């Protein structure tokens, strides 16, 4: 199938259309994870470790079990164990050995907040009171939080059975360093020797949380025949099914997961936390069990991103050619292996043709919650470091930062450090649009600075299943297996309507449960509009094929002489006076002439479109207090084709503001015992409405030839370049390098003071 991306006069694609789930969401009708209630439902609360690292000596749950209203109490004894995974360590985030221990601690606790026991009771109050009656004896161990300290020979070791994987063999001694991902090309030594100017800098970034407003929540119901029904807020109910079934040793078909509406995910709801606990307690008690994390628990126990320590070295010629680039990064994986090291390698220096380059990224365990994905996992912190050096190099040779990037820009056929070959990409277009944008040359006021940074994400395709049905009256249901995080049902409907040539109001998109649909991978990596959308298109084309066959049968002509145009079957035989048949007419005939008409598609989509995003940010700094505020913000991104422009803009704006928070104020604060100090939205400071300006968006459309509608992912690149752009703006505002995120006021004030001291 050749995708003709030259067509632009679409009926629905690219128009601002109403989203199908909108009315429910503005009226309070939509049901999220905690909006489900079942008769006889019990409430589960989890006891969590107050120590960053400790051995569990004993757990006595007898008093809790005896409390009136408590129906079930569990510890790791009720969660099956799984053996250590073996090399070559494929999808680490699905390592059952680790997941079992993260869901419920076995012999050790690895972070403040690690689950140790759980209670199901007739009310939340009773469950909480029961937790206080559980007596856990710990042997406190020294802890470590910094990834470089964690690989020091004297560092406390988290897992005695974890060795560093060194490609065919493992290290002799246990180590917190699980493995390192490397990508390289050319000859670094040669490259640096050719450089006229070399810049070497160290960077660090604090870990940050996805910050979804809806805490994790689920309700599990089990029956005596071993079946499980799970309602949960998730980005991927098929993955949740696989993880729960795999962990608890239940057959896949016996676990039916329904995805509730989801109140934000950003990658943080791609895995299991409370679901297996709720399921086991339901099995033990014979009753439905509700398990909702409090906000404090979300911060203490659900996976944030990695924190990082990075060393970057780059060399450039005075004519602007980058001759060599090297990065070494240490990522905090949290309590279990699985930092996004491979993806970081993929994104390092990805926008630039550099003949000699290397990125090494280390996956290091430390006493923090196990990391989860956050919107381009591994990339924003890598971009923060690399783009800072790129900007510095441009400054040193006196070249405009956009021109510098244009000079070294990758094009189709170039390769990333991770080995991806770029197809048709819109990097040059994005850079050119930047130069022409009024923001680029707008004057700045006092104490203001402008920052610029580029971000990249390769996006994913993968497995998606779709089932579409034509109903008797000519309306259509489109069922997918992907939870709708930000309006994807809208895009599904738009693509289906475009194919069929009918009004979008005649199409009803739904998210089906795991029992009703084939496997669909997570709503993540911006794969949904791409892969699931493609499957929707396939399923609709199958329906169209059947409609044409039906018309051919009715007209008693060859199906090769029937085509589908503007919502009708038409005869293409010349000199014919056959009146076209509308979708509605054909739909009414279908069941009388052969059977119900449906189309489905189960694909493994490849060819996802890589995308680049450039952000321009103006900040104003108060040099006497270190207060920073973003004054103007523009996001220029190659979006492939914006199926639903409103929601593409929304992705760009949302990512930009997350980036502002990441750059300025978000971080995890620990005491010297490794206990998390800021466990709520008061002191985990995310941007509020008055902290940010309007976010201007420029949607550059270079269609992805691999998708029927040219779709590229949009959700990730927008966060990748945001913290880097904000940091660069602060650097330019105060004339001082800023190499450590977040740029909170004490850090900025200190830098301002250094500037003042230098001036005096």
């Amino acid at each position, binding site marked *: 199938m050749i995708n003709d991306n030259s067509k632009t006069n679409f009926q629905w694609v690219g128009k*601002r259309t*109403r*989203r199908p*789930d*909108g*009315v429910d*969401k*503005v*009226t*309070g*009708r*939509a*049901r*999220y994870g*905690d*909006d489900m*209630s079942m008769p006889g439902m019990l409430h589960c609360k989890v006891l969590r470790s107050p120590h960053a690292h400790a051995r569990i000596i004993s757990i006595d749950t007898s008093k809790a079990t005896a409390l009136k209203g408590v129906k079930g109490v569990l510890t790791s004894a009720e969660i099956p164990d799984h053996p250590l995974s073996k090399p070559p360590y494929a999808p680490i985030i699905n390592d059952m050995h680790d997941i079992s221990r993260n869901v419920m601690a076995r012999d050790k606790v690895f972070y403040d907040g690690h689950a140790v026991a759980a209670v199901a009771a007739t009310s939340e*109050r009773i469950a909480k009171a029961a937790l206080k009656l559980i007596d856990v004896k710990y042997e406190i161990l020294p802890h470590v939080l910094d990834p470089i300290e964690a690989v020091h020979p004297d560092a406390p070791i988290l897992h005695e059975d974890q060795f560093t994987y060194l490609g065919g063999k493992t290290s002799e001694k246990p180590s917190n360093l699980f493995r390192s991902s490397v990508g390289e090309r050319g000859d670094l030594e040669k490259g640096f020797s050719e450089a006229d100017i070399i810049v070497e800098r160290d960077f660090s970034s604090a870990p940050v949380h*996805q*910050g*979804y*407003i*809806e*805490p994790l929540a689920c309700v599990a119901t089990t029956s005596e025949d071993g079946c499980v029904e799970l309602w949960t807020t998730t980005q991927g109910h098929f993955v949740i099914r696989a993880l729960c079934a795999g962990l608890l040793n239940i057959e896949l078909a016996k676990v039916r997961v329904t995805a509730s*509406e*989801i*109140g*934000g*995910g*950003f990658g943080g709801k791609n895995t299991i936390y409370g679901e297996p606990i709720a399921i086991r307690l339901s099995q033990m008690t014979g009753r439905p069990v509700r398990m*909702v994390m*409090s*906000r404090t628990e979300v911060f203490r126990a659900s996976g944030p991103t990695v924190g990082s320590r990075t060393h970057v070295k780059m060399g450039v010629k005075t004519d602007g050619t980058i001759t060599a680039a090297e990065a070494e990064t240490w990522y905090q994986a949290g309590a279990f292996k699985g930092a996004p090291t491979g993806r970081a390698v993929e994104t390092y220096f990805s926008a630039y043709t550099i003949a000699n380059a290397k990125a090494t990224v280390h996956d290091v365990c430390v006493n923090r919650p196990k990391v989860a994905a956050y919107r381009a996992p591994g990339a924003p912190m890598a971009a923060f470091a690399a783009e800072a050096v790129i900007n510095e190099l441009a400054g040193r040779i006196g070249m405009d930062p956009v021109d510098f990037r244009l000079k070294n820009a990758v094009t189709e056929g170039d390769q990333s450090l991770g080995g991806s070959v770029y197809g048709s990409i819109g990097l040059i277009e994005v850079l050119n649009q930047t130069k022409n944008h009024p923001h680029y040359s707008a004057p700045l006021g006092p104490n203001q600075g402008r920052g610029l940074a580029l971000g990249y994400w390769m996006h994913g395709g993968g497995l998606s299943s779709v089932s579409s049905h034509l109903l008797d009256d000519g309306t259509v249901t489109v069922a997918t297996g992907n939870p709708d*995080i*930000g*309006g994807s049902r809208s895009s599904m409907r738009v693509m289906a309507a475009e194919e069929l040539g009918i009004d979008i109001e005649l199409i009803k998109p739904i998210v089906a449960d795991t029992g009703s649909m084939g496997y669909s991978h997570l709503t993540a990596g911006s794969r949904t509009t791409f892969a699931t959308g493609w499957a929707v298109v396939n399923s609709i084309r199958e329906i169209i094929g059947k409609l044409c066959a039906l018309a051919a049968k009715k007209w008693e002509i060859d199906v090769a002489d029937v085509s589908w145009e503007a919502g009708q079957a038409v005869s293409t035989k010349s000199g014919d006076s056959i009146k076209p048949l509308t979708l509605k007419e054909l739909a009414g005939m279908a069941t009388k002439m052969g059977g119900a008409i449906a189309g489905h598609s189960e694909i493994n989509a490849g060819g996802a479109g890589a995308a680049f995003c450039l952000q321009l940010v103006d900040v104003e700094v108060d040099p006497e207090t270190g207060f920073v505020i973003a004054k103007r913000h523009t996001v220029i991104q190659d979006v492939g084709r914006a199926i639903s422009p*409103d*929601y593409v*803009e*929304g*992705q760009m*704006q*949302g*990512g*930009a*503001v*997350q980036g502002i928070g990441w750059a300025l104020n978000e971080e995890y604060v620990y005491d010297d015992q490794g206990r998390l100090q800021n466990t*709520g*939205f*008061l002191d985990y400071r*995310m*941007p*509020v*409405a*008055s902290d*940010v300006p*309007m*976010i201007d968006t420029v949607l550059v459309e270079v269609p992805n030839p691999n998708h029927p509608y040219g779709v590229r992912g949009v959700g990730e690149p927008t966060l990748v370049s945001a913290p880097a752009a904000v940091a660069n703006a602060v650097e330019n505002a105060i004339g001082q390098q800023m190499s450590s995120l977040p740029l909170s006021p004490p850090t900025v004030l200190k830098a301002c003071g250094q500037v003042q001291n230098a001036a005096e």
Partner: protein
Amino acid sequence: MARHFVSTTINGDEVEFACQPGQTLLEVLRTELGMTGTKNGCGSGDCGACTVIVNDRPVNACLVLGVELEGADIETNEGMAKGNQLHPLQQKFLDHAALQCGICTPGILNMAKALLAKNPDPTESEVRYGLAGNLCRCTGYDKIVRAVLDAAKEMRVNN
């Protein structure tokens, strides 16, 4: 624990509920009355997801007790539309794509409604500061602010 019986008006309807002294309005709405349109984002007044209007004042339902509401007039998101007729704010939020996941939306709609009742012609800055108690992680606030300003304009024209 003794239960108190409390008589209130919720979205124009007389509603009587029983609650324990420690139960917040948020718990009463969601657990006792099954009204899940008011959302629980943090339980400590930092996110605004549970914003409702009590006696014409916007408040966080997690920081109000059920027992103190005798005779109170409560408005939640479920009562914002009049029958099938969406409130201008609800309509504008849809028109401007001012929501993505939608979890913050009920609270923001209530807060915006209260804001516009007091200040029918706000500036962009006044809207932003007015909504400072409502966290949104998806939209970056841009389209929310535009939707509120546009709704304000329409509501001024209609009055």
